[in-house]
């Protein structure tokens, strides 16, 4: 079996190399059989990688400790779902898993485009297979996942306890899907540049893929934040750790891309900018992988560290040189067909939104790389902490929030004063009233007041959009309110799904505002039976409880939670002692309500006196992080799901079939 896995990787490498050559030949000669062979090559590589993954999974599940990877990342007592998740728990396995996702996506792209984009496909294959070849090369030459131990281990060293958490089963896959998914729009952009077929067709073709990748990137980031929240035990969910930043930067540029392509589709503007954004986004996914795996910058995410850094850097340089070089060559063909008419218009608002998103990405990049930069320039490694990021990004984030209210509603081309008054009077008043209410309610933090005002401003613009749309439809078609609303969404799912996503993002802003400004933190040492108070809760410490299993020993502090003298809950913050890697971890206990989270950590304890130190946090409004994520997912489904036969897009779809039908 092990041999099969090894040879599968070799076969994948050989076929991938062949496929790139064949696709280049196909691009050169335009011969159909060359393209067909290259397309089969993509499928064959996928098959070979799939075999390798199956072999590794089999080895994990059957606890084949002859294999170094299996012995390093699992053990005989590891539950089955974490054993499967161990596939992406370490460097080698995660690279293999990455290759699987990439080749799967490439295969789907090939199958989707058997009849479409024929001119682009050879180049698309060149791009996708080059990325695949890079990852497969790492697997073959540098970090072979099927390396065996000289002496088979009797027991595995087990998966890192921090990874033995249910988020582990979904955070890495969704992040990888997001990272890898961005290769598709990049590959088509590359193909458009290479062929000179530079109209918006590459954007239209990859719209769903971009959304798909963006969606999983969003979820991956959120899942990662929630994981950190539940596992790392410092009361927060985002610390501007290099690895968080690594996943956040492509999200920012990807979000900018998602918005600016609309302007290209509608107005044939920003063509070069879109190319730059997608190249940048793809490069940042590679850069993010480099950050997490090189160990250049120390991070909470050290499980996947290795000496792979330089290879990623070379590859990144290659990607940038080739794609930016091509872009430079094609610049004359990418002239904008329209110009900005006015600074107060939708086009310019979108442009501002782009600048802000890229600005935030740059600030994050700068802060993340500062230790390296400062070391290179001044010889001292200076790390900038969360204060830097918060200071720079808070105002930018608020501007972004403001633009989110303005952008989708403002008139195209040139907004008149009358239009502005009509559209924004209501939302502005709503925002001001919300701000005033915050002030009256006793909030004196001006960041919070501004943030909540803007949040209500944006929500009001979105509500007004739906309201006006429904009214307009009713006037045009004469439907009932409910039918008008559902038809409104069905007729332009892109626009209204987008609004739903915006509501999700606004909710995330609510959570960020609440937790970053109004968080309460307390550290107390208690004797059995003593209690303390935090944010309206009274907590009584009842003593320590113990539990032991084969895999883990638990020690829990039993805490009774009272509100107004009535017991509402019992929380048990834990210490866990994992037995295989002999490592203690801290498991937090959380009581969630819509208003806030009560978050308890067992800091330290004295086994004899039974005294315990409890860290308690009250995180206001953090529940909106979950709900925002769910709303965002819902909105994305509205935008992305294939159109039903009755929906209007069916009549917009370029009627290729019809065209040929009428001709023949």
């Amino acid at each position, binding site marked *: 079996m092990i*041999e099969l896995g090894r040879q599968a990787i070799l076969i994948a490498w050989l076929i991938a190399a062949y496929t790139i050559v064949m696709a280049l030949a196909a691009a050169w*000669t335009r*011969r159909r*059989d060359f393209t*067909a062979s290259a397309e089969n*090559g993509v499928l064959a590589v996928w098959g070979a990688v799939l075999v390798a993954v199956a072999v590794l999974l089999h080895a994990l599940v059957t606890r084949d400790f002859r294999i170094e990877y299996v012995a390093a990342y699992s053990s005989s007592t590891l539950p089955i779902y974490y054993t499967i998740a161990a596939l992406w728990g370490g460097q080698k396995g995660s690279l293999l898993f990455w290759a699987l996702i990439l080749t799967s996506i490439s295969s789907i792209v090939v199958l989707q485009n058997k009849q479409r984009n024929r001119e682009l496909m050879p180049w698309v294959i060149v791009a996708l297979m080059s990325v695949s070849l890079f990852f497969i090369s790492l697997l073959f030459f540098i970090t072979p996942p099927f390396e065996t131990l000289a002496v088979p281990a009797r027991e595995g060293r087990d998966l890192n306890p921090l990874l033995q958490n249910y988020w582990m089963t979904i955070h890495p896959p969704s992040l990888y899907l997001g990272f890898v998914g961005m290769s598709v729009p990049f590959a088509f952009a590359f193909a458009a540049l290479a062929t000179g077929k530079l109209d918006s*067709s590459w954007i239209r073709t990859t719209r769903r893929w971009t959304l798909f990748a963006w969606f999983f990137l969003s979820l991956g980031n959120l899942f990662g934040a929630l994981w950190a929240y539940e596992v790392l035990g410092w009361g927060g969910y985002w610390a501007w750790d290099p690895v968080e930043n690594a996943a956040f930067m492509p999200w920012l540029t990807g979000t900018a891309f998602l918005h600016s392509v609309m302007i290209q589709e509608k107005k044939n503007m920003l063509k070069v900018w879109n190319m730059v954004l997608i190249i940048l986004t793809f490069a940042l996914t590679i850069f993010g992988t480099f950050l997490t795996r090189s160990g250049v910058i120390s991070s909470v995410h050290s499980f996947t560290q290795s000496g792979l850094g330089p290879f990623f850097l070379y590859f990144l340089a290659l990607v940038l040189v080739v794609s930016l070089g091509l872009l430079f060559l094609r610049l004359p063909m990418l002239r904008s067909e329209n110009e900005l008419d006015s600074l107060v218009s939708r086009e310019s608002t979108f442009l501002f939104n782009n600048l802000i998103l890229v600005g935030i990405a740059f600030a994050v990049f700068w802060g993340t790389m500062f230790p390296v930069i400062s070391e290179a320039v001044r010889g001292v490694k200076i790390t900038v902490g969360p204060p830097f990021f918060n200071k720079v990004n808070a105002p930018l984030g608020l501007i972004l929030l403001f633009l989110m209210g303005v952008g989708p509603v403002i*008139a195209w081309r040139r907004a008149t004063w009358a239009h502005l008054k009509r559209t924004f009077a209501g939302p502005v008043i709503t925002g001001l009233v919300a701000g005033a209410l915050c002030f009256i309610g006793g909030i004196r933090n001006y960041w919070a007041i501004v943030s909540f005002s803007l949040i209500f401003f944006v929500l009001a613009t979105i509500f007004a959009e739906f309201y006006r749309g429904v009214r307009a439809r009713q006037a045009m078609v004469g439907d009932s309110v409910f039918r008008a609303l559902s038809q409104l969404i069905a007729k332009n799912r892109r626009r209204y799904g987008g609004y739903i996503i915006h509501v999700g993002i606004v909710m995330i802003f609510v959570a960020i505002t609440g937790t970053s400004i109004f968080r309460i933190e307390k550290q107390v040492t208690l004797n059995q039976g003593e209690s303390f108070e935090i944010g309206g809760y009274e907590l009584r410490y009842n003593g320590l409880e113990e539990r032991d299993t084969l895999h883990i020993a638990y020690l829990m502090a039993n805490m009774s939670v009272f509100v107004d003298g009535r017991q509402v809950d019992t929380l048990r913050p834990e210490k866990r002692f994992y037995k295989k890697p002999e490592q203690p971890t801290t498991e937090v206990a959380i009581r969630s309500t819509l208003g806030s989270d009560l978050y308890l950590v067992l800091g330290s304890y004295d086994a004899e006196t039974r005294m315990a130190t409890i860290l308690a946090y009250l995180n206001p409004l953090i529940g909106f992080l979950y709900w925002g994520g769910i709303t965002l997912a819902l909105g994305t489904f509205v935008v992305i799901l294939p159109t039903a036969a009755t929906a209007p897009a069916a009549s917009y779809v370029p009627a290729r079939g019809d*065209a040929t039908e009428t001709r023949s």
Partner: protein
Amino acid sequence: MSSTAVLLAGLLPAVVFVMWPLFFSGDSDAIEALPEDDDESLQRKKVAALAAIKEAEFDQRTGKLSDDDFAALTARYKAQALEAIAALDQRSTSSSAPSGTIKFCPNCGTKALPGGKFCSGCGRPTRA
């Protein structure tokens, strides 16, 4: 089983699968045709222009476009759509005879454009 045997056993079917089109694909020397792409981009241009008109109408109704701008925009998009339709028209007549299924809209009597799914006069589908 030796590693070479495993390699060959795996590589052989893969190579056959990948090389197959080179030797057995009938039209081995066929060149990927370009005009198809042109047709596609014309179609797309037409559809994009028509969609833009529709969206402009809606934007005007919800007050996002002034009447002047609306008139100017629709005039421009109409011109674009007509241009694309005319080009498509020409291509389809030059490449082969028009299909001749429906010449006039059964609803309002406007002359139907070849290849059009909907009547340019009243918007009803041209085929039942």
